[in-house]
């Protein structure tokens, strides 16, 4: 049938998460995204099982696949043992691999996410790292967040962290040898290729929009120009 459907079927998550949907809506009923975005996981699950390439391609280029928060609340409810959350993850991966993510405002955000999260992982070994978590980008961290940022080392010392220190402990410096192993894992399992691909396509898009890399990153991180609700 559809080539895109076959591609999705190569993903373990899709095979595990996509059985015959009966359109009952138990997923959408409790989905945190369904209430605050134009989002209906039931329809996505139903659409992919049509195996229709044109419809799947439209999904891969759409805003809608980027609305899910991957909380997986849908998984515990489905009477047919579908996992809409896993289907979404497979759709997103394919959208990224095919370069379709660039077609949607929410999809374009992948570049900012890749830079921030994978940047932290490869450089420090943590998903989140206090020296790159800035109050300016996170005003919700509040007055206490500002106080922590201004007194980072002293606060962490007070709370028993081993921030950037040797040996085990909270926020210790992860040895370079271990970071090198992470990098090798990224290289041989496709993460590096995915990051490079996202960067290449995003920078092309930035050029199209007449933005520098920094401006583009700032733009996709902060701006909403279409109605998602």
């Amino acid at each position: 049938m559809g080539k895109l459907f076959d591609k999705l079927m190569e993903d373990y998550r899709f095979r595990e998460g996509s059985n015959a949907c009966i359109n009952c809506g138990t997923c959408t009923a409790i989905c945190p995204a369904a209430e605050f975005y134009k989002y209906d996981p039931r329809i996505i699950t139903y659409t992919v099982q049509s195996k229709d390439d044109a419809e799947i391609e439209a999904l891969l280029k759409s805003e809608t696949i980027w609305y899910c928060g991957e909380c997986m609340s849908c998984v515990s409810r489905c009477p047919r043992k579908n996992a809409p959350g896993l289907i979404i993850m497979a759709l997103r991966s394919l959208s990224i691999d095919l370069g379709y993510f660039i077609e949607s405002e929410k999809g374009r955000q992948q570049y900012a996410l890749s830079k921030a999260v994978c940047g932290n992982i490869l450089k420090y070994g943590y998903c989140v790292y206090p020296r790159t978590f800035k109050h300016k980008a996170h005003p919700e961290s509040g007055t206490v967040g500002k106080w922590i940022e201004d007194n980072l080392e002293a606060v962490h010392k007070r709370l028993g962290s081993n921030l950037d220190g040797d040996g085990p402990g909270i926020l210790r410096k992860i040895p370079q040898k271990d970071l090198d192993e992470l990098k090798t894992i990224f290289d041989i399992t496709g993460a590096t290729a995915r990051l490079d691909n996202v960067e290449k396509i995003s920078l092309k898009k930035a050029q199209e929009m007449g933005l520098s890399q920094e401006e583009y990153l700032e733009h996709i991180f902060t701006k909403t120009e279409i109605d998602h609700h």
Partner: protein
Amino acid sequence: MIVNGKQKIWSEYQKEIPDDHYFYVRSCIRQNFFPASEKTFLDIVRNKLNLDFFETEHHTTCGGIAYHSDTIPQETLMTIVARQFALMTESGYKNYVASCITSFGIYTETLETWQHFPEFEEKIRENLWKATKREFNKPEYLAHASDVIYKLRDKIAARAKHRLINKFTGEPLRVVEHIGCHYSKMFPSKGVGGAEYPYVLTGMIEAWGGEIIDYPERRHCCGFGFRQYLVQANRGYSLSNTHKKFESMQPFKPDMIITNCPGCPYFLDRWQYVIAEMEGKTYGENSQGIPVFTYEEVAGLVLGYDPWDLGLQVHQTDVEPLLDKMGIEYNKADKYKI
């Protein structure tokens, strides 16, 4: 509410949690936002209860946040997981304990996927060997660190300096529990109490004298949503979901919130501040906010740790009203002393 209906479900979802000798793996988010919680946890289990918890400096992030923001493939994630398992194997441990709920979900999902698709496990073993020349055994037991505190709850109660009782009224404190979504929603049998009525935090609260509140949005996600928080433009989603929870719990007049996920307490705490700033709306008694705690912090308070050693000063929503209710003495001047 018919309590024994819940008890029946709880009795069906018991989980085997080993007695001792754990390989402890830290949480990126907990280390960043609640570092003293991990310190307290290890102090309780190692020094107060004399258990063996081993940590190696060589372990890293599990990659969970990167995976759930779709920046790395599943194969990369699983190979990182395999590397963590290899570190456990090399250290001579079999019981794997994660501090993070996202990680716990990922370890569970990885082991389940390998069981269904053994060829995938083989591929990951090859990847790991190629990348690091490491090999691994799968853990015999996988637990979240809150499972361990759940198991030790009565021992902690026996050493309690304070109980979850309102000293002004003599009544049990009214506690809202918030379970991280990835604890048991994907694999109900892997969590104490299952997915619909998890018992892991309820058990602690009952053992320490408090009363658990069941409210309509109890099972609802805190709204983190990975990319929905990590990208500023999406944070309305995150905020709105927390807002929905607070609107739902407010009529039950909770004294506090206890959580087992490292991210949820941060969001439930900080979004209260944002809602107050943005909407002028405050929750809790006398509009002081509803203080939010990690389970390690609650265990620490029960055991008599100093609130500022527990790191309660890094909360944006003030914890003092709760400390007063529990009759815990603290020095106001020391709060921000560094």
